[in-house]
């Protein structure tokens, strides 16, 4: 079965093509096409995984383009890493397909939505199967395109359009870095294939300044795509897209592509220590940084978005501190429980008629039993509580941070783990416990800074005057028909089934790499790659991480469940810090001021310069010739005698010249 691994990406591609051309007729049934395609891909990838465990690898390559003697090839390859990734991507994508059948049920562009999901799954799976860096880059950009299309799915919302553009542009900056990196690599090694590059790096074909340069350039691509510190601003805005999109793209798969890229190019990173430290520190800073912002967010999806950035920071930190398996293990587990959390949030939002502000929710535990339980499991998993997947993978990361020797990184990791536990349970208690605060209709928090980001434009609001008329039938039916029983209740099977599946996975996934079972995942991933001993934490580290997680949960419990500490306790103590976090460290404003506005200003200056100087010279030449012509014209004043005089003078000059030349005056 491993030979036809190429089928895995082709199924969603077929789904995409079908829906692109025949979507209008399918309308509702479009979801079945998507689900069927993903189910098939999932089955094939499971079979491929079993064969891969048996040790088989398969590589098939055809010639893509030839220039001069060298040629670039395309094809597909199955390795340990991408076999695992195939499972993760197809599973999460399948689950999201099922979930969004209900969530997008009333949107009349559902077929377009499913076609974009199909295209996304195709490009993500293509990325994973790529045998060389160039093909990875090609699908990397296609994934970026799909995220642009899906974030901007409700394009009639200006915020969604701006968020989509911002997402594409910020990742584009990273992609250009990646492109430069792989072009330089190509020039040094003569080919894009992983094998050739590993060999070149091993036997030192490339001088090490170039290795560091290419490593950092490639890492820039990862930073862009996995929303690491400097280029993370697009992910929170990308929450404008529908929630299933956020679950699939901005939680599990696409953002993980950056980590996958670093994983795939690991030998290159291992070869340069500076690159490793840069990676580690970026990961640490991003993790800490995003966690702080997640503490204060009031929009359910934004909290999860920042938590994703923070968890990705953990993975990058792990990879930076030589914890190859730790990073990738966390990638797998995180994909499951983050998708779970997002889908849980999705079902909550769907139940409370598309309001995303957690201050309007609360008390949903009794009303939405399945969602609450699964959400709790997810929260426990991400916090790193004992039996669940998060505990095992996070503990490995802490171990690799510790063994790396740099105490600062370990400290940061611990504090971030604590903050993760705290904000997750703050979110949990605010949404699911206490009484339901979502009774009244008008949006009490219209003036809240984040709310204007999405609240005012929230299409479903009955009293939203602006583009009410056009979008009524387009997006979600008006809240009226939910009115008669406006208290939320559990959603249908299509939504809860995925939650249950993901919740069980969040529990089970950890067992894959159990320490006392000899780390089976580690064996699976590292065979054939000489990456040195993988760090493993001692028992006391496991207990320490449990204590940290527990205290985080306890603090959240105290503040939001019992009310022992006032909710705005910290807000009052450090209003400045609170405000800073609330406004996302004013990063967006800084970026606009530092990058966007000057570029536009330079552009305008050049435009003026172009119009006045370069064009000016051209017009000047034109005008001056015509004006000299006109001025000569005016000399013709009609006086015959003037003409006579001029001709005589001319005659004299000629005669004089003739005399002189003929040497008369000799």
């Amino acid at each position, binding site marked *: 079965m491993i030979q036809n691994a190429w089928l895995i990406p082709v199924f969603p591609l077929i789904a995409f093509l079908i829906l692109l051309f025949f979507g209008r007729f399918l309308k509702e049934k479009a979801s079945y096409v998507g689900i069927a395609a993903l189910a098939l891909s999932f089955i094939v990838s499971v079979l491929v995984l079993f064969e891969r465990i048996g040790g088989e690898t398969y590589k098939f390559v055809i*010639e*893509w*383009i*030839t*220039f*001069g*003697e*060298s040629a670039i090839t395309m094809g597909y390859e199955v390795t340990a890493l991408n076999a695992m990734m195939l499972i993760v991507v197809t599973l999460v994508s399948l689950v999201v397909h099922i979930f969004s059948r209900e969530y997008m049920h009333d949107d009349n562009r559902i077929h377009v939505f499913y076609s974009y999901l199909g295209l996304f799954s195709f490009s993500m799976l293509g990325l994973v199967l790529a045998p060389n860096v*160039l093909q990875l*880059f*090609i*699908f990397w*950009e*296609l994934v970026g*395109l799909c995220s*642009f299309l899906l974030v*901007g799915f409700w*394009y*009639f*919302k*200006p915020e*969604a*359009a*701006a968020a*989509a*553009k911002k997402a*594409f*542009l910020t990742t*584009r*900056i990273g992609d*250009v870095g990646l*492109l*430069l990196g792989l*072009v*330089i690599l*190509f*020039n040094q090694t003569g080919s894009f294939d992983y094998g050739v590059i590993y060999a070149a790096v091993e036997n030192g074909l490339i001088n090490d300044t170039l290795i560091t340069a290419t490593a950092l350039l490639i890492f820039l691509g990862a930073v862009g795509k996995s929303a690491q510190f400097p280029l993370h601003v697009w992910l929170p805005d990308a929450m404008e897209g529908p929630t299933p999109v956020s679950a699939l793209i901005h939680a599990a798969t696409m953002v993980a592509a950056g980590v996958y890229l670093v994983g795939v190019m690991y030998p290159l990173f291992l070869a340069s220590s500076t690159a490793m430290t840069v990676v580690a520190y970026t990961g640490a800073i991003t993790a800490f940084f995003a966690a702080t912002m997640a503490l204060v967010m009031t929009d359910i999806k934004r909290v999860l978005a920042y938590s994703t950035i923070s968890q990705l920071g953990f993975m990058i930190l792990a990879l930076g501190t030589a914890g190859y398996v730790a990073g990738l293990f966390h990638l797998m587990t995180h994909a499951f429980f983050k998708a779970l959390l997002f889908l849980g949030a999705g079902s909550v939002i769907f139940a409370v008629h598309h309001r995303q502000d957690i201050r309007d929710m609360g008390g949903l535990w009794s009303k939405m039993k399945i969602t609450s339980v699964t959400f709790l499991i997810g929260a426990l998993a991400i916090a790193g509580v004992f039996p669940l997947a998060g505990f095992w993978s996070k503990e490995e990361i802490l171990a690799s941070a510790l063994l790396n020797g740099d105490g600062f990184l370990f400290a940061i990791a611990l504090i971030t783990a604590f903050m993760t536990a705290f904000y997750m349970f703050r979110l949990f208690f605010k949404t699911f416990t206490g009484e339901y605060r979502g009774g009244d209709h008008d949006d009490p928090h219209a003036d809240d800074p984040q709310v204007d980001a999405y609240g005012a434009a929230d299409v479903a609001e009955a009293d939203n005057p*602006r*583009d009410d008329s*056009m*979008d009524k039938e387009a997006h979600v039916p008006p809240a009226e028909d939910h009115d008669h029983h406006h208290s939320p209740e559990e959603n249908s099977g299509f939504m809860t089934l995925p939650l249950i599946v993901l919740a069980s996975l969040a529990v089970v996934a950890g067992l894959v790499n159990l320490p006392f079972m000899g780390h089976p995942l580690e064996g699976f991933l590292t065979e054939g790659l000489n990456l040195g001993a993988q760090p493993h934490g001692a028992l006391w580290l496991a207990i320490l991480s449990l204590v940290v997680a527990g205290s985080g949960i306890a603090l959240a419990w105290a503040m939001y469940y019992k009310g022992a500490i006032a909710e705005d306790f910290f807000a009052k103590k450090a209003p400045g810090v609170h405000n800073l976090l609330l406004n996302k460290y004013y990063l967006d404003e800084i970026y606009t001021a530092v990058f966007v506005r000057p*570029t*536009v200003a*330079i*552009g*305008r200056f*050049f*435009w003026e310069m*172009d119009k006045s100087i*370069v*064009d000016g010279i*051209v017009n000047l030449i*034109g005008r001056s010739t015509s004006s000299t012509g006109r001025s000569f014209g005016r000399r013709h004043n009609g006086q015959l005698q003037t003409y006579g005089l001029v001709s005589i003078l001319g005659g004299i000059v000629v005669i004089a010249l003739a005399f002189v030349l003929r040497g008369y005056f000799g």
Partner: protein
Amino acid sequence: MMGNLLTWLVFVPLIGAALILTIPRENVNVIRSLAAIVSGSALVLSLIIWGGFDRGVSGMQFETVAPWFDIGFLQINYEIGIDGLSMPLLVLTTIVTTLSIFASFSIVKRVKEFYVWTLVLLTGMLGVFVALDMFLFFLFFELTLIPMFFLIGIWGGKMREYASFKFLIYTGLGSAIMFITFIAMFVKGAEAMNFQETSFSMIRLAEIYANPANPEVLTGALKGGLFLALFVAFAIKLPVFPFHTWLPNAHVEAPTAASMILAGVLLKMGGYGLIRVGFGVLPDQAARFATLIAILGVINIIYGALLALVQTDLKSLVAYSSISHMGIVLLGVASFTTAGMQGAIFQLVSHGFISALLFFMVGAIYERTKTRTISELGGLSKSVPILAGFMLAAAMASVGLPGLSGFVSELLAFIGIFGASADLIPAAYTIGVIGAIGIILTAAYLLWAMQRTTFGPMKEKYVGLPDARPMEYVPMVGLLVLSIAIGVYPHLLSDVINTTVIDIVSKIGG
């Protein structure tokens, strides 16, 4: 017939134009269909030649040499032929012109003249790409100026006179410089063979300049001067930074079909000429000025992108984006590596398709909304979803999204510039990096434009707009499919170009 297939290809449009002249101006449909048939047959002919083209051979194919006229020792013969460089451009010309004829079915003013001028223009363009005799090259080069002048001048927008005159005089100046350089080359060539043998043919001159009988005639300074003059002449046509101001005016005022051809093919003649004559006859000089060309290329990219960023008119935005994309051609050509050269030729072909599509979309939208200013447009994907979809696809192709042809040429150009030998271009890496910044800017201005025009809430005044008409599907689908084909499987194009690229680059030991 098989022998002089090329001559048939070049002159079929001219015959077509003559035929159209015979038809009375009233029955417009007959004229339109005849024009479509004529350019369609030219397309078929070019595809036959594409099929018959022998990929392995590096020299000229389908050659025809016939004495044309001679005055005294001036022997000018009608010498035509194609190789890997001109083959794809030939097919590009016929495709873009045929599709632009389809695109121009909405023109109602003086239809007969429009198609006569378009077909004469087609003959001129085809002639340029096949001519091997410099005199013939110049003749066809000029032949393309006049029709385009009339196309812009009569069917253009408000400031069409200004734009068409500026275009005519600017490019006319360029071709004048070119002509003077050709004559200088001819004379110096004859002198170098101390007048036993005189020839206007590019191939023969290349050999003469490679190993002249008495070398002291062809001094470095002279050849340098000749190359620079040639570079200026072609830089005006392929708009390079200081000489680019005619392009935005010409594009903004030209009707859709004319600006499709202008962007699709006419700009390529500059690039083609530079490679064919500049790099062909004076390769050592090209190497000498490689750094200059690379720097000009980068300036073009950044300058074009920055200006496109601040445009308010959608069509001038696309015009400036053409300037930016042509910078990549210069970058690729200056690198003198097989990858770079192939990237440049790819960019010529792919930009031909993409910019033609973009201009068609802008034209179609202008036809419906009667405005091109970006601020007035908005929410088009709601009012005209299909057009907006194709526009978005064209923008993505122009941004250089993989899977579309724009990416392949940019990738090859960058591989080329980074692979350029250090002594040829000392600062290759810095130039490459600055060029890469250009790509980010390209994504920025195109996406910003797309966001403001296609996304966003629907505007009331655009509610009842008619979406794509069946006739409009032909150019849209045609160009997009071609761009995807080259993007997904570039081997189609690269095996045709490869032998010639190796041949050109080997001239300076690339």
